[in-house]
C-alpha cells in the first residue's frame, strides 16, 4: 500500500535520518522524497510503500508520533488516496 509521510516543524539535524530510520526498521520502502525549508520551518514529504499485511498503519503511526514528540515535529502517515482524491478529479 502507498502512503504519504509528512514532517513539519523547526529545522534541525537528523530529521531525515531518524524518520527514514523508523521507516526502515518497519520494512517501509521510500519511493519519493522532497523537502523544503522556509525561514527555519522544515517540511518534508515522502511517498512510501508498505506491505499492509506485515505492517499496520496504527503501529507505524505510534512510532512516528513518538519520534515527532521527541523532536518537536508534527509527523503524519496517511494513505495516499486521501490526497489524490481530494485534489484530482
Amino acid at each position, binding site marked *: 500500500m502507498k502512503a*504519504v509521510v509528512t514532517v513539519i516543524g523547526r529545522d534541525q539535524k537528523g530529521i531525515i535520518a531518524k524518520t527514514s530510520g523508523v521507516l526502515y526498521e518497519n520494512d517501509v520502502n521510500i519511493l519519493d522524497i522532497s523537502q523544503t525549508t522556509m525561514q527555519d520551518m522544515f517540511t518534508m514529504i515522502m511517498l512510501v510503500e508498505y506491505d499492509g499485511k506485515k505492517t499496520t498503519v496504527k503501529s507505524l503511526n505510534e512510532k512516528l508520533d513518538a519520534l515527532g514528540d521527541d523532536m518537536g515535529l508534527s509527523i503524519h502517515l496517511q494513505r495516499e488516496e486521501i490526497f489524490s482524491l481530494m485534489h484530482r478529479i
Partner: protein
Amino acid sequence: MLNHFEILETVNMIDRENLDIRTITMGISLKSCAGQDIDTVCRRVYDKITLYAKDLVSVGEAIEEEFGIPIINKRISVTPVAALVDALDEPTPENAVKIAKTLDKAAKKVGVNFIGGYSALVHKGFTRGERALIESIPQALAQTELVCSSVNVGSTRAGINMDAVAQMGKIIKEAALLTADTKGFACAKLVVFCNAVEDNPFMAGAFLGEGEGECVINVGVSGPGVVKCALEKVRGEDFGVVAETIKKTAFKITRMGQLVAQEAAKRLNVPFGIVDLSLAPTPAVGDSVAYILEEMGLEKCGTHGTTAALALLNDAVKKGGVMASGYVGGLSGAFIPVSEDAGMIAAARSGALSLEKLEAMTCVCSVGLDMIVIPGSTDAALISAIIADEAAIGMVNSKTTAVRVIPAPGAEVGDTVEFGGLLGTGPVMPVREYSAEKFISRGGRIPAPLQSLKN
C-alpha cells in the same frame, strides 16, 4: 507525485482547520423484527442491531487511523420504530419504551454514540402505534441515553398535521420536565420535522426511511473551519469569488467524505448510500458556520444580510459537493444549531441573533430551528406554534425544516445552559409572549400548498 502544496493543504485542513468526517451512520432496517409479542420483538431488534453493527466502530477507527482523518461519530439509524409498535398485540406507550430501552442497550453494546429512529411519520394522520410511540417519547428519552427520536408532522404533499403539532408542543414540555435535573436534555434528542428525509445520517433526526434497503452506510461530512479559512484568503473580493472559493473547498471536503463512505461500505460489506454535504459546526473554536457568515463581512451573525450570506453559502456548498460524490442525499446544507456553534452562541448572547432571524435563515439553509434553548416557562401551545411556523416554511418551500428546542426548566432569558460535548452551550433565547393557544387548539390539518403561482 502530488505536489507539495496540495499535500500540506490537506494536512493543514485536518490539523488546524478542524476538518473531519462528522459521522458514519449505519442504517439498519428493522422491518424483519416486527411481531405481536413485545419480548420477541425486543430480542429480534437487539440481535439484529448487534449483528449488523458489530464491526461499525472498529472499522470506523481503522479508517481514521489509516487515512489520518478524524471520524467523530459512529451511529446507527433504524426503521421508524412506530411501525414495530403498530404490529404489536398491545401497541401501548409502555411497550414502545421497552423497544427504546432495547435500542439503547444494543447501541451501547456495539459502542456507537447515538441511535436514531425512535420515530413516527404522521404528516397526514396517526396509526395506533404512532400514537403510542409519540406518547411514550418523554419517558423513552428520559430512560435511555443514546436513543434519538423524531416525528414528521408535515410535508409539501400532505400539508401539516396540526393535531400532531399540538401534541408535540406538549411532548417537548413533558420531556423537558422529566429531565429537569439536566435542564431538559431529553429535548436535545428530539426533532420535529416537516419533509423529513429518509437517508439523513445526522442526529437527532436520523432514521432509515421506508424506501431504504436492508442495511446502508451514509456519511455526513463537516468542515466549517476549512471554509472560513479559505474565505480569509479572499477578503474584499466580490461574491463571485466568494462562491467559487466555497465551491472548491466544499468539493475537497466532500471528496474526503466520499472516500470514507466507500471504504467503510466496502469493509463492512454494506451498500454505500449517500454522502450528506453538510457544514456541521461544533462548539470548538474555529468550527463555526456563524464565523463564515461574519467572514463574509457581517459584524455579527444575525444582523441584516445574514440570510443572504447564508443562502450563498448553502448553495455554493451544494454546488461544490455534488460534483465530488456519486450519491448525495440526506439534509445537505449548512446547519445552524445555536448551542453547537461558537459564533451562534456569541451572537445569541449579544442579542444580534434572534429566534425570528433564525427562522428567516432556515428558509435558505438546512435544517431548522436547531438546539435553541428557550425559557422553561414557555407554554406547550407556544412551542407548537413555533413548530407550526417552521413546518409552514418547509411545506411551502419544498424543503426539510425541523425544530429542536429545549424549554429548559427553571431557565430564563439571560441564563446559559450547558449540555456538554458536541451539544455545547445554549444561551436562553427570548420567545414572543403573546398566546397562540386558540390557534393551536383548532386541530385538524393545514392543506397542502399549491405548487404553482409561486409568489
